[in-house]
């Protein structure tokens, strides 16, 4: 192990000895100085996670959250210097964290909070002029082949648990005591203006949006939604996407335009 790797490993694991070869500027014990530094590193990473996952923290309490986060920091120290990216796989870690097994919805709630952070930092993109969509209506036969490029901040998350209601209850919308955590819910996360919004949608609508986001055309997205709900009506979800500026460009699959390119 290189000196740097040994230093990094000892930073997050108190069981490891102080790396050799350290000197303190004032001649004090390097092991003590290193312990202070190690504590600052770990605590600042736990604080970063607490900032990004406030509802997870509220659901399990500070003490449980900080203990869980500490284990995560030790197991999976940051791979990037950008703190906003730290915690990308925190939800996966929670899913495998045995002490949290009693709260099966916790991992998906963490996924929802992660979606909000990544949506906040996603690139800007201009919304489509509705007139362009209206123009597509002139030839209805081509509609199933239409591709909608969605906003880079848009995320969709389908869950077996009531993640939207649980999250909303922590924003002062609805009472936590009245939420049935075992009710499946899907969330649409998008950035409208400068605000990240969480919108509850049906499982069929979630399949529809996920299909569009993956680059499939409207007809294929309808089929994906139809698997959840035979008589799926896309009006509501299309209205939401358009009104929230989440549709950026449109092109037909037959026109050989790469996805995302502007097409008149």
């Amino acid at each position, binding site marked *: 192990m290189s000196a740097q790797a040994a230093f990094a490993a000892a930073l997050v694991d108190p069981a490891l000895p102080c790396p050799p070869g350290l000197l303190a500027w004032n001649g004090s014990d390097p092991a003590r100085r290193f312990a202070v530094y190690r504590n600052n590193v770990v605590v600042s990473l736990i604080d970063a996670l607490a900032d990004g996952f406030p509802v997870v923290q509220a659901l399990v309490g500070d003490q449980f959250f900080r203990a869980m986060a500490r284990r995560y920091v030790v197991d999976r120290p940051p791979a990037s210097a950008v703190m906003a990216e730290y915690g990308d796989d925190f939800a996966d870690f929670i899913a495998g964290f045995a002490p949290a097994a009693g709260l099966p919805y916790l991992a998906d709630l963490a996924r929802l909070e992660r979606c909000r952070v990544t949506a*906040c930092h996603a690139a800007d993109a201009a919304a489509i002029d509705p007139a362009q969509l209206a123009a597509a209506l002139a030839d209805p036969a081509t*509609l199933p082949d239409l591709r909608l490029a969605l906003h880079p901040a848009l995320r969709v998350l389908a869950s077996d648990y009531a993640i939207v209601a649980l999250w909303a209850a922590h924003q002062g919308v609805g009472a936590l005591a009245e939420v049935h955590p075992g009710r499946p819910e899907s969330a649409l996360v998008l950035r409208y203006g400068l605000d990240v919004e969480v919108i509850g949608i049906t499982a069929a609508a979630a399949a529809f949006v996920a299909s569009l986001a993956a680059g499939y055309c409207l007809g294929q997205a309808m089929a994906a939604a139809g698997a959840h709900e035979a008589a799926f009506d896309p009006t509501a979800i299309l209205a939401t996407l358009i009104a929230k500026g989440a549709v950026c460009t449109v092109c037909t699959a037959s026109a050989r335009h790469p996805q995302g390119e502007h097409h008149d």
Partner: protein
Amino acid sequence: MNQQLTAASLALALGAALTVAASPALAADKMADKEKCFGVALKGKNDCAAGPGTTCAGTSKIDYQGNSWSLVPKGTCQKTASPTSPTGFGQLAAFKEKKA
């Protein structure tokens, strides 16, 4: 669902969706009374957009950076002093800073 039926229901849905989306309740544009103003944010205080290699909000490296913007009330941007701006004021598009 066959292709024709899908086309018909999509036409209905998209038409209705456009109407709903244009209704005042949903169309209340949050940005309507604001504008993005480039070159007026102090270092690290930009709302968003500050060049390659940065991740948006709070990442501008210098005061009055020309490619970082702040959200300001509409109409005030080009009246806000910006020492780095060639016009001497904030601008509605990114610009190259002159020496302040």
